[in-house]
């Protein structure tokens, strides 16, 4: 672990979480969604909105910036804010940055939120949104290759070719997560599915079927980050931020001869993350892994060290990620079945599990959780948090 890092481990805590309902059409602006989620999180923590002195979000031009949300809630003198450009790969960096600001004393109570009308306004799946601005787009978009489901399908096929990963592995993951969502009142999709339902779902981009893809969702989610000391005096049991890491990863521009599309930025980041917490994969009781697509979870199970490289598919098929397995994963149903709030709902679910208030889907004895961002396939970076019960 880096000697230069300020005493960060367990210095900050998540003191509250807040949600709007997850829907297919919120009928309101992302600014309204953001304000509702921020207020809900503050209420959950037992704080007043006037206690908030920092706001942070991430977005790709599709949400409300802190400079809008602050004034909209009458917060005219924020000590700190962050408007992080980027997709899911930075979702956990936002909370990490907030924890760092709190640990450094720049702010005391930061609300991190993500508001998105991903179904009714800006669909990530390739329609209703302009082509992203990046030099690499010119080499991809002319061939009709532009949307995340295509990119992930491409990497998933590489994994299938190299390691023998099968459609049934992806399917088992979708089935398990839907079963989790059935126990989650917030989830958009709660009707259980079978492996046959998965295999019968229509093609999107082979090898991906509809049920490999996450739900495009309208909704918002927020978490309150404050000092561990202060969190102890608030309404809810505090959940400590033991480690926060971001960065890592390579890209097709790096000229690395060993470039391997079956390895994500998470493989580079995981050792730093675990070292910061003083923990390893064997210490994780529950994992909320960014599941924009089924394959995303399978590759992260490998790159975060829960199974060997190439063994993610059989690991899932063995039932290891089910609620009664050694590593319950995406206990809320994930993006595949709860809803897609771009990473923030994974963090909030980890908090719920560690507070012990996850209801029917509670993992008994959950003390340490891993929550992760998009593992760095689309941008060469990822981010992740390790959270724990005090």
């Amino acid at each position, binding site marked *: 672990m880096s000697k230069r890092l300020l005493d960060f481990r367990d210095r900050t805590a998540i003191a509250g979480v807040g949600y709007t309902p997850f829907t297919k059409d919120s009928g309101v602006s992302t600014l309204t969604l953001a304000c509702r989620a921020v207020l809900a999180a503050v209420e959950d923590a037992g704080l007043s909105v006037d206690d908030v002195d920092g706001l942070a979000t991430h977005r790709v031009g599709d949400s409300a910036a802190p400079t809008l949300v602050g004034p909209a809630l009458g917060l005219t003198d924020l000590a700190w804010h962050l408007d992080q450009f980027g997709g899911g790969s930075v979702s956990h960096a936002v909370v990490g940055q907030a924890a760092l600001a709190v640990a450094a004393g720049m702010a005391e109570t930061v609300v991190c939120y993500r508001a998105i009308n991903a179904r009714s306004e800006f669909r990530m799946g*390739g329609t209703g949104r302009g*082509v992203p601005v990046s*030099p*690499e*787009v*010119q*080499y*991809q*978009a*002319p*061939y*009709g*290759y*532009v*949307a995340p489901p*295509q990119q992930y*399908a*491409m*990497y998933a*096929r*590489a994994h299938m*070719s*190299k390691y023998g990963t099968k459609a049934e592995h992806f399917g088992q993951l979708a089935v398990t997560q839907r079963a989790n969502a059935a126990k989650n009142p917030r989830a958009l999709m709660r009707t259980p599915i079978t492996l046959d339902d998965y295999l019968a779902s*229509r*093609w*999107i*981009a*082979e*090898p*991906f079927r509809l049920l490999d893809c996450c739900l495009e969702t309208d909704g918002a989610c927020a978490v309150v980050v404050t000092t561990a000391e202060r969190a102890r005096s608030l309404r809810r049991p505090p959940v400590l931020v033991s480690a926060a890491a971001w960065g890592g990863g390579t890209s*097709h*521009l*790096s*000229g*690395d*001869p*060993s*470039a391997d*599309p079956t390895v994500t930025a998470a493989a580079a980041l995981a050792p730093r993350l675990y070292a910061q917490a003083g923990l390893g994969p064997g210490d994780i009781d529950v994992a909320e892994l960014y599941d924009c697509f089924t394959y995303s979870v399978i590759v992260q199970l490998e790159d975060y060290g829960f199974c060997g490289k190439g063994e993610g598919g059989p690991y899932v098929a063995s039932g290891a990620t089910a609620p009664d397995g050694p590593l319950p994963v995406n206990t809320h149903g994930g993006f595949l079945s709860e809803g897609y709030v771009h990473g923030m709902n994974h963090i909030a679910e980890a908090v719920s599990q560690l507070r012990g208030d996850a209801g029917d889907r509670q993992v008994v004895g959950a003390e340490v959780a891993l929550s992760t961002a998009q593992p760095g396939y689309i941008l060469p970076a990822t981010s992740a948090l390790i959270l724990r019960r005090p």
Partner: protein
Amino acid sequence: MAAYRPAFDRDSRPWWERVGRREFAVQECDGCGAARFPARAFCPACRTEAWHWREVEPEGVVESWIVNHQPFMPGLAEPYVVVMVRLAAVPGCFVYGNWRGDRPPEPGERVRVAYRRIDEELTLVDWEPAEDDGNLDTHPARRTSSR
């Protein structure tokens, strides 16, 4: 027509112009000789800014491919195949294009560039099996499915 007309930038314009002349070139670093693509100013291996174009064999191997069953951009007719090719001339470099084989690609198979002229300003780079011969421009992007 192309589904999307690429916006050439100051790094990439000369590369696209060469493709228009059916030349397949990559940058070669004047400092260490490393090849790189796509075009940009600095060598990631030695950080030298000086470089020159080098024409290379337009070949690679199939790393992966997808069959698109919905038009991800306006103007496309599904299904269509996008292939991801590991470029032979540049280690660790992956490039994309539409598939022009009359069967699905196979992982690891050798492929060659098949130029697709859109108009005077734009030619695209597709891929086809390396053992194919014949006129590269006679067949349209294949519609194959691995279902």
